């Protein structure tokens, strides 16, 4: 048969349509049957098709590869808030608009006043943002306000005499290498940076708040760092594909010393997942720990498995009190490490914790100390500051 390019294209097209049609529609309708939603709008069906399209990861990788060749530094979606920027060092980041963060700081002051009546100390922990002053180079025309927003927020805490630690400043003082502080393809801090943050806060707990524990446990030498090179594609990376900014190395850190920990994870749907054993058995979520899995596996969340309304971690080897931490996702590795020096920690995520107000819960739970750990992007809205005071 004589070769004809148009007919060849048509034959391939039929094959592509049949394969994509069958496998995508099959998956969509299977998921619909599985979830049995009461009502499904056409828009929702459209987004199901987008989510379940056959070879989605491959298509996004291809997209990112082409954009990399075109040297595009900004990747925009239909939702403008999903903009991803490639910084000067090749890492992926987002940026913050200018916000009035004063009301958020005033909420923290009100919470501090509420806690003071019960003699519960409050420590605000300011995690760093990926756009680092004096280091991160954004494309001309993009202005990030994360540092200005955060400075404004902390200045109000200063005026209100709230205890806080600004890890941005601490990182500068400790000469942390900016390039190593965060994953390249994810907005979260690296596991090593989270460990460093844990040592800074644990020292404060011991020095200022009377928590007693073995300070040797703050030394990285007491932990094993398992490195998995080129094994992780972070949340920003997953949206632009592995060929846009490459893959990250992932380090898993776990203590060498003996631990006896139990964890109860309280989910939004009322389910409770319990794990116990040593640090790795109790704290990690096995499916995300599988380093042979696809790089798009969210290894960052292998500590605890993700964000939940409430997670209670008990260290049965210690008797030094309990801490309630109001947190965002930066806390996952941080709290994992903090649990090695704290008898009990209760992580509350206000994005999902809706059953009662935080203050009512504090009245019931009676912690010895309350911490808030937020990264600057959590300062953009009031949701994370709805403490109920």
């Amino acid at each position, binding site marked *: 048969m004589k070769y004809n390019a148009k007919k060849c294209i048509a034959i391939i097209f039929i094959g592509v349509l049949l394969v994509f049609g*069958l496998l995508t529609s099959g998956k969509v309708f299977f998921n619909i049957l599985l979830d049995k939603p009461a009502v499904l709008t056409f828009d929702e069906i459209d987004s199901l098709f987008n989510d379940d399209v056959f070879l989605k990861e491959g298509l996004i990788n291809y*997209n990112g590869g082409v954009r990399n060749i075109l040297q595009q530094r900004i990747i925009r979606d239909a939702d403008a808030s999903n903009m991803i920027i490639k910084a000067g060092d090749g890492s992926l980041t987002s940026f913050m608009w200018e916000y009035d963060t004063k009301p958020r700081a005033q909420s923290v002051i009100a919470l501090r006043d509420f806690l003071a009546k019960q003699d519960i100390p409050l420590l605000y922990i300011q995690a760093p943002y990926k756009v680092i002053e004096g280091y991160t180079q954004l494309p001309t*025309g993009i202005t990030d306000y994360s540092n200005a927003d955060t400075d404004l927020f902390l200045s109000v805490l200063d005026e209100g005499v709230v205890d806080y630690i600004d890890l941005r400043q601490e990182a500068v003082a400790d000469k942390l290498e900016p390039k190593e502080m965060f994953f390249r393809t994810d907005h979260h801090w690296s596991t090593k940076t989270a460990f460093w943050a844990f040592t800074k806060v644990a020292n404060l707990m011991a020095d200022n708040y009377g928590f007693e524990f073995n300070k040797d446990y703050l030394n990285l030498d007491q932990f094993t760092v398992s490195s998995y090179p080129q094994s992780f594609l972070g949340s920003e990376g997953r949206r632009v594909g592995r060929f846009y900014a490459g893959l990250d190395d992932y380090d898993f850190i776990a203590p060498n010393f003996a631990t006896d920990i139990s964890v109860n994870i309280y989910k939004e749907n009322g389910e409770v997942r319990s794990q116990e054993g040593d640090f790795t058995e109790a704290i990690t979520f096995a499916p995300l720990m599988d380093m042979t899995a696809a790089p798009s596996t969210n290894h960052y969340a292998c500590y605890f498995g993700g964000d939940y309304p409430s997670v209670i971690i008990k260290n049965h080897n210690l008797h030094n009190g309990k801490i309630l931490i109001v947190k965002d996702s930066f806390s996952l590795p941080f709290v994992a490490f903090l649990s090695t020096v704290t008898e009990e920690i209760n992580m509350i995520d206000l994005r999902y914790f809706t059953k009662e107000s935080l203050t009512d819960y504090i009245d019931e739970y009676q912690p010895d100390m309350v911490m808030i750990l937020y990264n600057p992007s959590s300062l953009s809205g009031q949701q994370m500051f709805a403490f109920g005071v």
Partner: protein
Amino acid sequence: MLFSSTSFLCFFLPLVLFIYYVFLRKNVWLKNMFLLVVSLFFYAWGEPKFVLVMVLSIVCNYFFGLLVAKDRRKLWIVLMLIFNIGLLFVFKYLMFTIYNINILAGANFTVPSIVLPIGISFFTFHSISYVMDIYRGKVEVQKNLFYVGLYISFFPQLIAGPIVRYNTIADQITNRKENFEDFSYGVCRFILGLAKKVLIANNIALVADKAFNTPSGELSTAMAWLGLVAYTLQIYFDFSGYSDMAIGMGRMFGFHFLENFNYPYIAKSISEFWRRWHISLGSWFRDYVYFPLGGSRVKSNGRLVFNLFVVWGLTGFWHGANWSFICWGLLYFVFITIEKLSNFEKRSTNLSWLKHIYVLFLVMMGWVLFRAADFTTASNYFQTLFHLNNNNLVSDMAILNFRENVFYYIAGIIFSMPVVAWIGEKFKDKTSSLTKTYQIIRPVIYFALFFLALSFIVKDAYNPFIYFNF
């Protein structure tokens, strides 16, 4: 449902093609009924309740067709026009009319909130041309209601055209012969249309939107020009890409639609631009408005000017119920009238590039009126374009948008000219080794484009369709 959506590409199109060719291929009636049902389903995907409006339009125009065929009384035509234009008026122009009556007469009528059924301007024009062509004796009446329904609602051309005339496809509805040659052509055309729409129009649209949505005081002159060039490219690739997909899908099912675009930006006069831009709309107004008024074969220039005024006023108004659209239409009235009265097209000149610049400049100025939300916005935009205000000449926003999108600008400018046709000419000699190589890599190019377009869709990238609003 959008052509550039995963639900269309991974569900609707493969399913429809599969059923059509595997189960129904030998029975025309079944094929047509199936296409009618899936076309109504396609329309219902986005606008379930407005399917009733379309069905009403189909049924009424079917009976108007029968009545006109029975005795060619003008009464039926008048009633048909009252019905069709009335339908269009209620959904598209009633709010605008009441709003303006309130302003002009100082009245206080409540302006109702009416949602525009997608594609109503297109299927109304299909319907009018169907009955008018029967009245003029150009086509036989279609006695099968479902076939009239298929003509009006056939999904490739339902939502954004082209405005297919009934006489173009009357015979194809009952006697079409699908073949693999046509199918292959249709596939290639569809892929190119999808690429034009998703890869160029959607990406460059981000710059246009940014420029036109930036407060006038913050917009630099450079950004205003970048935004205007972006919109000029966006509207062409958006609409011609959609037409390519429609024509391509028509071919896949054995229908041959006429072309809707012919590289309008290479025109050397405004009249020529309109012979190349949205050809099906231009020819509709020519055949059903301009010629009945007497066209250009009239005794006086005054009458010619009047005829042109009516046609271009209506063309502008067809695009939207807004004074800026009417002014946009009248802008073309002014320049086409000047061209006609001065025999502009027949005057030969060595400076043909100057004619290109004249056309492009005017068309682009027209797009400002077309795109801006209102006159004030358009006026501010014009001032920034010509640096008549105190805005900056260049801004970081302009540098950013140019740097990020330079590839789309280059691709857009190149492919708005007949480059593909030129390549086709170059590779006409089937014996040359270059042609053979091109033919071998051609499928690779097409599927690189197809999967890239699909990847943008899957990524939930920006995906507007300008002509859905009309």
